[in-house]
């Protein structure tokens, strides 16, 4: 089997859209959560989110093209371009014919959907915009990345709610490993901070009204986010031969389904995905130094995920460093796994563990080392990034130092 490495990272995030800005905010625990300003809030009970505020579409797209892209596609295309630049990768005609494009998103063009329905139902418009459907379809981001970069190999969208980004990266990893493609653009994107989406999340009663405090006894729920992270994944020998920068090596991918509750985490299902990822990577539990947790900041997830870590790692759980990036990034749903994969790859690259920000008090139900509030310089050889989705779909990736 081929070895697979990460040679390019492209980001659009609430804490900045370069690797440098993203990493410094993560390490310093500077949160991207703030008052919602990108949509009207008069009908919202929850008025905070982690928004991408420094994104100006006209800097990236001409007017004609911009018209075709919902915000979630804009994020994906801009992140994909940045990943290719970062990887110093030139697509020859031959490579473009082989390259895979796999994008994870939980929803689709929700801004387009919201705007379109508002016009129809609230303003009694008689017709929808002709690009409504191509803008909002779930595969729009993936298709537009492939069109923008001219990539013509296997190209599709993976939708598994909050695990979409991780499933997409895992799928690309497996294809390169099996020799189905030498290079893949893979990651996740989401932009669903809309009135309709937030009202839906409010009704589930899992949103925090103040901020996200993963694993802290005082946690009060999750905070929605948005953004995209795209990666150039590459067959290792090829990357080494062209002297590409290598952030980390992808070692294993584990998946499972809970087949239980539609929203609540099932520690058994989550632990099975972690174990599967360790087995796939052919490593032992005590080889893992750091886990970038799903850590949503809800009472149930963080307790259930802690139980799952104990189940999967046994006695080794006590020596793990575990942190959640969601206090800083918010929960960007389908993009979350990808943004957190970036955090994990950069942790290996910089040999630094980003902290769990906003951590206030220990919770007896959450008894692991969550690296509270302060980053830690520590040797990291192997790391894990976990995503557990609504619908009970779990995806776990294991990475190694380059």
């Amino acid at each position, binding site marked *: 089997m081929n070895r697979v490495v990460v040679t390019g990272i492209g980001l659009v995030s609430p804490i900045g859209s370069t690797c440098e800005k993203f990493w410094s905010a993560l390490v310093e625990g500077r949160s991207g959560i703030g008052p919602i300003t990108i949509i009207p809030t008069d009908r919202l009970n929850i008025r905070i989110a982690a928004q991408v505020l420094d994104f100006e579409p006209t800097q990236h797209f001409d007017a004609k093209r911009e018209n075709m892209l919902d915000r979630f596609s804009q994020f994906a295309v801009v992140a994909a371009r940045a990943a290719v630049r970062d990887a110093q990768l030139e697509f020859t005609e031959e490579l473009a014919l082989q390259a895979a494009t796999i994008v994870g998103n939980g929803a689709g063009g929700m801004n387009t959907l919201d705007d379109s329905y508002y016009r129809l139902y609230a303003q009694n418009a008689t017709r929808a915009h002709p690009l409504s459907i191509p803008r909002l379809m779930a595969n729009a981001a993936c298709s537009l990345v492939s069109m923008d970069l001219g990539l013509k190999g296997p190209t599709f969208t993976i939708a598994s709610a909050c695990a979409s980004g991780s499933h997409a990266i895992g799928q690309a990893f497996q294809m390169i490993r099996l020799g189905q493609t030498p290079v893949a653009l893979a990651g996740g994107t989401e932009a669903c901070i809309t009135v309709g989406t937030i009202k839906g999340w409010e*009704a*589930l*009663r*899992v949103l925090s009204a103040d901020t996200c405090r993963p694993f802290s006894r005082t946690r009060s*729920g999750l905070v929605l986010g948005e953004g995209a992270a795209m990666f150039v994944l590459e067959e290792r020998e090829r990357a080494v031969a062209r002297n590409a920068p290598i952030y980390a090596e992808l070692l294993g991918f584990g998946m499972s389904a809970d087949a239980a*509750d*539609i*929203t*609540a985490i099932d520690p058994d299902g989550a632990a099975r995905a972690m174990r599967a990822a360790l087995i796939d990577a052919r490593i032992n539990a005590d080889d893992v130094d750091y886990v970038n947790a799903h850590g949503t900041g*809800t*009472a*149930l997830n963080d307790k259930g995920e802690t139980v799952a870590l104990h189940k999967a790692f046994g006695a080794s759980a006590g020596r793990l460093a575990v942190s959640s990036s969601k206090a800083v990034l918010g929960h960007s749903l389908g993009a979350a796994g990808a943004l957190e994969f970036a955090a994990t790859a950069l942790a290996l690259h910089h040999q630094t563990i980003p902290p769990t920000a906003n951590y206030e008090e220990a919770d007896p139900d959450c008894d692991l080392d969550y690296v509270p509030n302060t980053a830690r310089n520590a040797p990291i050889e192997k790391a894990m990034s976990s995503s557990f989705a609504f619908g009970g779909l779990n995806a776990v990736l294991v990475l190694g130092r380059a």
Partner: protein
Amino acid sequence: MAIIDDVRSIIAKSLNIPMERLTPESRLDELGAESLDVIEIVFGLEEKFDITIPLKADEATRLASAGKADGDGQNVPFSTVGDVADIVQKLVAAKASQ
């Protein structure tokens, strides 16, 4: 219709059981309500009476699992059909006095 009967009707519909089975003493967990059922019931009551019932998802989960072996019935805002009716009654009265 008295508030208790509206409450029984909404709970019965959500749990797909005959309304006659519901007494004020019936416990939601024993009726088989799961976390999302509780959230749906509360939504139904909020819509019916135009009130806001404070409830977090984890409270709904504790409430639904209170009777199970690994359940935790601590700090739940209500347990029985009668408790729910009491809360609705208070919120409706508070709204009327505004």
